[in-house]
């Protein structure tokens, strides 16, 4: 099942205040996305922890409703 990019972005922003979220629809099918998330909350966290924070923001949709999300994370510079 597909999920609109705007919904992904809104969920991440809601969970990570001040986050910059860039979503790319890789295949144009609303099902394969790349997301780049830059959030102040990532400071001092490991890569695994940063990704887990984004997955939690998506509330269990990752791996289910949302099959393919390439994820990169960074702390604002």
């Amino acid at each position, binding site marked *: 099942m597909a999920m609109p990019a705007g919904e992904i972005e809104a969920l991440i922003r809601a969970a990570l205040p001040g986050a910059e979220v860039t979503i790319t629809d890789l295949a144009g099918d609303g099902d394969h996305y790349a997301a780049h998330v830059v959030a102040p909350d990532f400071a001092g966290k490991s*890569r*695994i922890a940063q*990704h*887990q924070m984004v*997955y939690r923001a998506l509330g*269990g949709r*990752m*791996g*289910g409703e949302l099959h*393919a999300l*390439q*994820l*990169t994370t960074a702390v604002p510079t």
Partner: protein
Amino acid sequence: MSEHSHSAADARIAEIVKDNQVVLFMKGTPLFPQCGFSSRAIAILEHLGVEYASVDVLQDMEIRQGIKSYSDWPTIPQLYIGGEFVGGSDIMMEMFEAGELQQMVEGLKQAG
């Protein structure tokens, strides 16, 4: 899923990551990956030239579900090195590009 099957899966996964210094939980096999992300993970491991084991979660429902809670990670593939969860294919790619995965593998060779 019952408590029992949870802990059974956890015990099996704990043994797999203990017995194999580098192990990838993936969809399909290294020769025939069944998903683009698993395929990317294999390409990185092949490029590193490290010996690795793989577990095809499509052939094992207990591990397929169990690994997600074991690692607190919702997707497959998942890489373990030296018994520690390293990440999925995105983190593998970032670490590979930063030269960090190469360092981890070198560390293993020296320790072994």
